[in-house]
């Protein structure tokens, strides 16, 4: 009965999040997190094993999608600059936040390291939406930012997978299975798609899900995390998605309709508003840690390639985060590395980092920001009644 009640409440909240997303022009993920917070703090909903598993799987699917969204051609085109900017964009906040948590806050090493991972991220999706809106996706600055974001994402995925591994035989098995799947899947797809593709039963999507579930299983045995192989697998099949747009679209439909909502809802449900309120000082410090380390790290290399205004725009966009930050935080909570207060504060910092730097970048540093003052030239406003006004147009 309780499972049915939680499933029903989650289903209704997920529907409401979609509707609110369309009405408000905001990402559905952000609203799912917000409604998750309401569910956990006001409605008293709590997670269950099935919801935990769905959320974990959704996190891996999101990572796979992030890898598949990497534009390999663009990466090659901007390799040197993106490695420099994207690499520092990962390293500076990772070490900055880690050392801050360990030596200033006195947190244990694993919690400090994982905070570094969660705050090192850059959200490609947040960046991409801004670049589309500012018409910069095909501009050199936009291309550089996207390529650098791929590098930062890779750093985050690698750190999350490698930091907490324990040297066991299962680790060898995990590495071997991951390598086999990553090597076999791309060349296998042509035969598989020809023989089994284009059917309503979706063997292509099931194939990808099966590969990700195998990765999760072996990661669990090795007491590691499957984000790195999932990201690399996505990267290696990105050209497949490029060639099969409809398959990519159906994969997204399944992921967005049934999986990712549970991930973000669960993220929100585990945030305690009471603990966030009690730790507002910590929240401010961690938010500042991310933003300052990104600024100090990313701006100097950016200015080598871009104008000061574009370099600041780049720095601010590289300071955003959402999905990988939430994945890292949920991993920390599940593995007992974070307590609920730490998790609540870090997820809040991650969400704030999606909004605040984006707003500042678009409002004050957009390369195409128009003058906001009224035009100096004389103008008039004339209101007339159209002859068609009464007939419904």
């Amino acid at each position: 009965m309780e499972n049915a009640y939680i499933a029903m409440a989650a289903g209704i909240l997920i529907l409401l999040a979609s509707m609110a997303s369309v009405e408000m022009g905001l990402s559905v993920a952000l609203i799912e997190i917000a409604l998750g917070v309401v569910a956990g703090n006001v409605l008293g909903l709590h997670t269950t094993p099935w919801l935990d598993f769905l959320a974990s799987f959704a996190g891996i699917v999101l990572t796979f999608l992030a890898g598949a969204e990497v534009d390999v051609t663009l990466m090659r085109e901007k390799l040197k600059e993106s490695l420099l900017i994207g690499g520092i964009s990962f390293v500076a906040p990772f070490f900055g936040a880690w050392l801050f948590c360990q030596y200033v806050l006195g947190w244990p090493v694993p919690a400090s390291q994982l905070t570094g991972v969660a705050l090192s991220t850059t959200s490609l999706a947040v960046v991409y939406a801004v670049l589309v809106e500012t018409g910069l996706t095909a501009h050199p600055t936009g291309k550089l930012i996207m390529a650098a974001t791929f590098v930062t994402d890779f750093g985050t995925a690698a750190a999350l997978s490698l930091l907490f591994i324990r040297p066991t035989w299962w680790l060898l098995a995990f590495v071997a299975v991951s390598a086999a799947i990553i090597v076999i899947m791309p060349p296998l797809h042509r035969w598989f798609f020809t023989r089994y593709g284009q059917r309503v039963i979706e063997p292509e999507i099931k194939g990808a899900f099966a590969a990700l579930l195998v990765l999760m299983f072996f990661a669990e045995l090795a007491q590691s995390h499957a984000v790195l192989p999932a990201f690399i697998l996505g990267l290696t099949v990105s050209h497949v998605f490029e060639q099969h747009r409809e398959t990519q679209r159906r994969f997204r439909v399944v992921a967005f309709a049934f999986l990712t909502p549970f991930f973000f809802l669960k993220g929100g449900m585990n945030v305690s508003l009471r603990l966030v309120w009690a730790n507002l000082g910590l929240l401010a410090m961690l938010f500042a840690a991310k933003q300052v380390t990104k600024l100090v790290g990313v701006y100097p290399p950016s200015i080598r390639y871009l104008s000061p205004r574009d370099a600041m725009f780049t720095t601010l966009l590289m300071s955003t985060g959402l999905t990988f930050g939430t994945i890292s935080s949920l991993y920390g909570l599940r593995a007992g590395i974070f307590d609920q207060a730490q998790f609540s504060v870090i997820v809040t910092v991650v969400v704030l980092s999606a909004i605040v730097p984006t707003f500042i970048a678009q409002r004050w540093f957009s390369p195409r920001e128009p003058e906001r003052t009224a035009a100096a030239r004389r103008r008039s406003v004339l209101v007339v009644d159209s002859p068609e006004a009464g007939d419904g147009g």
Partner: protein
Amino acid sequence: MFGKILVAFDGSEGSRRALQAGIELSKRFGSDLYTISVMEHLPHYAATVGEVKEAQAGFEAFFRDLTKRARDQAALQGVTLETVVKPGHEVETIVTYAREGGFDLMVIGFVGHSNIWGRIMGSTTQNLSRLAPCNVLIVK
């Protein structure tokens, strides 16, 4: 008097009236006629690029159909219509395009699409009439 006319066109009833007014003015003054449509509801702060791309593809399909019908409507009345679709904030994008294009008149509907932020922050029409770099005709 009006060499270049720009109609803000989002497919709403108000913008369709504005388009018809623009077509009639174009015929009367021999003006070049343009419409601009803005994809303003791309999801902000998205979690996946796919969410943005799918929304973008949906809007592109919607505006492709919309602008084709607008061109057909103008052509039926003997007017050549140039249509432009851009992503971005509606007011900011239209004002920038009007300024960069050197338009003499902007024609806008009195009531168009506004999402919840638009309703809170003030209507698109109000903001366009305040910020436009040229004369503005508001069609009721």
